[in-house]
């Protein structure tokens, strides 16, 4: 599903260039759940951005779902993100003025679906995630765990090929973290490819495989 070959990325902002990803090789199969771990500055966030088509790379090759993605123009990248990827963020990134259904339906808006159909799909998904009684609640009226469930629903609503989760439990307490990981586990068992970035070993332990990054290189798989 994901294949990186000799991936190189250097940031050239400000002073001296920062070589963040160094000749990275990585394979993630369809249906796999993979945790990317590493200390801060190891390049794991950059890797996630590259995998998520939010950022480009300098050299090497990235194949996503069998397709080489390289030097994409912005509209194409946006379309591929919408089509293939679902994002889950540490701080949820829900729109405060929209209720749960509208937040979940947002990616479908950019797919050009009608409002009624969008909201119907979003509501169905939220119900399966146990938020049937929170459909018209705004993020401020939801607990942290509920917010992250809404965010997961938003990632799933487009039926993506891969879910990319960046510290999905980083802002949650232990109890809620476990619940969210259960949800992600269900998603994975249903066949979804999952890429988790985390620095918590107990989260990483629930993945099929842990990829450790240090100084922009994979140190153990």
């Amino acid at each position, binding site marked *: 599903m994901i294949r990186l070959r000799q991936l190189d990325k250097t940031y050239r902002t400000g002073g001296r260039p920062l070589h963040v990803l160094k000749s990275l090789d990585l394979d993630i199969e369809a249906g796999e759940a993979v945790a990317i771990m590493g200390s801060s500055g190891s390049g794991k966030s950059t890797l996630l951005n590259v995998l998520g088509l939010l950022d480009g790379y300098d050299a090497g090759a990235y194949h996503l779902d069998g397709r080489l993605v390289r030097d994409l123009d912005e*509209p194409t990248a946006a*379309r591929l*993100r*919408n089509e293939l990827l679902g994002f889950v963020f540490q701080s949820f990134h829900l729109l405060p003025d929209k209720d749960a259904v509208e937040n979940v339906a*947002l*990616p479908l808006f*950019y797919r050009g679906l009608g409002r009624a159909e969008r909201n119907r799909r979003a509501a169905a*998904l939220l119900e399966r995630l146990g938020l049937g009684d929170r459909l018209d609640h705004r993020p401020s009226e939801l607990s942290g765990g509920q917010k992250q469930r809404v965010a997961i629903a938003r990632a799933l609503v487009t*039926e993506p090929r891969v879910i990319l989760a960046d510290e999905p439990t980083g802002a949650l307490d232990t109890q809620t973290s476990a619940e969210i990981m259960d949800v992600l586990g269900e998603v994975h068992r249903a066949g979804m490819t999952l890429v988790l970035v985390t620095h918590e070993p107990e989260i990483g332990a629930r993945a099929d495989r842990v990829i450790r990054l240090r100084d922009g290189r994979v140190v153990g798989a």
Partner: protein
Amino acid sequence: MVGWWGRRWLSDSAPQPGRGLSPPAPEAPLRALLSLDRWIEVVELHRRHPLRTALTAFSVAWGVFMLVVLLAAGQGLENNLRWSFRDDAVNSIWVWGGRATVPHDGLPVDRPVQLTDDDTALVEALPESGAVTARFIPPSQSISRGSRRADFDIRATHPDHQVIEGTQVVAGRFLTRRDLDERRKVAVLGLRVAEFLFPDGDPRQGPIGERVRVGGLAFTVVGVFEDAGGEREMQIVYLPITTAQAAFGGRDSVNQVMFTVGPADIDAASLAASERAVRGVRAGLGGLHRVSADDRGALRVRDNLARYADVQSVFVWLRGFSWLVGLGTVLAGVVAVGNILLISVQERTSEIGLRKALGAQPRDIVLMIVQEAVVLTTLAGWAGLVAGIGLVEAARRWMPENDYLRDPNVELGSVLLAAAVLVVAGAMAGLVPARRAARVAPVVALRSDG
């Protein structure tokens, strides 16, 4: 085992075609613009900062309000000026004699110039002249019928005076060529004169054929008239000029010669004809009276068409000024909208980044911001438009008659133009912030995660 989740948990959605990417067909821009969905989205965004939105909207509304009120006031001024020209032929030239102010032909200054029938004849002979009349104002004569007696102004004229003055005969007739040729003792009374002399019965039909005394002489009333020029113009008695000259010691003298030139159009040809006529009059009368044709003191000539054209150019200037000031105010409002949206884009960097991460095209983002600007300016502008038109309508209904404004009004065309300007200006206002928003990199916007 697939479990409850299932790859196709949305059972009624079409199965994803295997590997092949099938990007959603991008919406045509026009369809995107017409999509009600997007407009709803935009209106919701403005609800986030109601006070800020309201203040910005007010500045736009105020601009449009000012534009409408200025245009209406300008129209009112224009109507008032036009109204002051209403009762006389616009395309007329009036000539009076004065006193020589420059020596000419070896003759000294300060000689009086007395116009006569010869001058009238000379004007009649001009190729440019249409209707021609002279005016002889006899020394004050009292006008009486029976015991009723009063002093009214007397004008002794030619028949064409009716055309030039805009006199409306409401009963009987005006003076005729035959009245002049035969020096008939006939009179045409202003409505107020008729009312005074014939207090019983219909002041319009009643006096016709009756006799009134002007000075010591009996005249037969042949007509009664009204005049749009107002009360004073209806307190006048018209007599045939030949009769009056003979009866009241005028001999062949006249006080004023008036004539029309061509049609009452303000175009280059009419203005040129009018100018030619003025030159012809000056040259001809200068020769007759042995004064310089350029002596403005001796030959006083008023070209009403040129004056009217001058006033017209003031209208044009006034209208331009109204638009300039009004649009300037609207522009200030539009800049405020752009400014607010710029701030809003800054505040919503994270939101915009998220939208992009979820698949928003740069075009979607631009459209969103531009639509916000258009919605804000259009709604606010519409409010200003309604308020402005409301004020104008109220003024039309309740403003007392005055010397400055008459029937203030805004033309529909101006309103539509202002509305179009607003929508375009709104889109322009959104463009700068929209481009900035489109440049937001999602990765930067989402970095708040740490």
